[in-house]
């Protein structure tokens, strides 16, 4: 067995940390390691936490880790923060709320930056989940900023997705209705002491009631919970609902192993192919100088961008 893979299996924190960096950096050699780790994955329970900035996701994750540790479960946390579109840099601040767990060797916390459009967020997150899984973590919590399409992609990797909202964000609930709303397995209204939390509950319930198809066939009806994560209120109840959802998945999907579920495998493979395809083709076009030449042609008015794009892709396909 590859020495890195073995170290990961033995729970070597430095090896795990380095491997996740290499996955994030897209180093080709990691594929071999991931291949070796693959047979040892599929045991961890993956929880996705998403919601708008400032709703209290990191604080919630911190409390969840605390509860899971009391149950003697080990936990891996992947905290995703956005990359600046201008500088390519990022400030990863989710750890601030979770630092009390840094000395606990049953907890591994890693911050990840989104790194732009085709940086392979999904692929690196998936890879990082598999690494923490192979390392033997019982639970893996993926925390991500929930505005847009990418973040919905991240929660595809989770067994249970928790959507965190706060009272008085009615308009935002409208906005997430079409995307994030549909992927929520549990809804948590955090900062529930604030005005309007009852209205938020009824808004969410109303929207859920409109989603007949899903629930009439004995499907999972997402529970709506209230919490004040900072005071550890409602966190225990959240974990109970996550347990319930896990049981539901076992009953309806025949188990929790991600890689045995046709829908998940299809989604994941599609995503991997997409990422690799885009990376490979773009790299080739950049290295060969074709992209630069096409840019010049368009600027000089010799080509329109649509034809330029066709040329770039067709010249590839022919080879």
């Amino acid at each position, binding site marked *: 067995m590859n020495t890195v893979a073995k170290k990961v299996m033995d729970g070597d924190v430095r090896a795990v940390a*380095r491997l996740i960096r290499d996955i994030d950096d897209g180093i080709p050699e990691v594929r071999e390691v991931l291949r070796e780790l693959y047979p040892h994955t599929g045991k961890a329970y993956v929880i996705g936490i998403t919601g708008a900035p400032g709703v209290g996701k990191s604080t919630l994750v911190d409390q969840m880790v605390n509860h899971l540790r009391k149950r003697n479960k080990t936990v891996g946390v992947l905290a995703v923060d956005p990359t600046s579109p201008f*500088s390519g*840099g990022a*400030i*990863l*601040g989710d750890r*601030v709320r979770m630092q009390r767990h840094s000395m606990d060797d049953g907890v591994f*916390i890693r911050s990840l930056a989104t790194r732009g459009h085709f940086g392979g967020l999904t692929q690196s997150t998936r890879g990082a989940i598999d690494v923490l899984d192979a390392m033997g973590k019982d639970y893996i919590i993926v925390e991500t900023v929930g505005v847009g399409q990418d973040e919905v992609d991240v929660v595809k990797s989770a067994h249970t997705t928790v959507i965190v909202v706060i009272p008085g964000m009615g308009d935002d609930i409208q906005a997430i209705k079409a995307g994030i709303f549909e992927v929520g397995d549990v809804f948590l209204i955090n900062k529930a002491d604030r005005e309007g939390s009852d209205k938020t509950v009824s808004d969410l319930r109303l929207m859920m009631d409109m989603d007949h198809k899903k629930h009439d066939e004995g499907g999972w009806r997402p529970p709506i919970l209230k919490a004040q994560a900072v005071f550890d209120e409602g966190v225990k109840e959240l974990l109970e609902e996550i347990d319930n959802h896990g049981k539901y998945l076992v009953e309806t999907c025949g188990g929790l192993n991600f890689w045995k579920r046709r829908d998940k495998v299809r989604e994941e493979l599609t995503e991997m192919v997409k990422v690799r395809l885009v990376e490979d083709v773009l790299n080739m076009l950049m290295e060969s100088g074709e992209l630069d030449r096409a840019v010049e042609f368009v600027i000089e008015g010799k080509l329109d961008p649509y034809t330029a794009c066709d040329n770039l892709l067709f010249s590839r396909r022919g080879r």
Partner: protein
Amino acid sequence: MVAKPGLDGHDRGARIIARAYRDAGFEVVYTGLHQTPEEIVEAAIQEDVDMIGLSSLAGAHNYLFTRTVELLREKGADDIVVCGGGIIPDEDIPALKEAGVKEIFTPGSALEEIVKWVKQNVRPRKD
């Protein structure tokens, strides 16, 4: 990673530095206030960072900075560069550098200079 060791509760400087690093294209993990050197080193290892920037304004830098470097050495992670900043008297700097702190930035250091120093002196680590 930008970290605030010890009991000092002022992190404006640390946050400004973190922001300057971000604008220079770095990924910056910020740990928050009141960290022990043990917590900082553990976090740095989990995050696999290339550099730790310690900020101290409360006078305990001699112990906190030195202890951080020591712990990294114990864990075999002394390839992570440590630098420090804050209210550090000039006479303390030689001993801190002797202990393994690579550079100290005192009040008045320009952000551009700090960023330039990092770009010149910190390289992604290889194992």
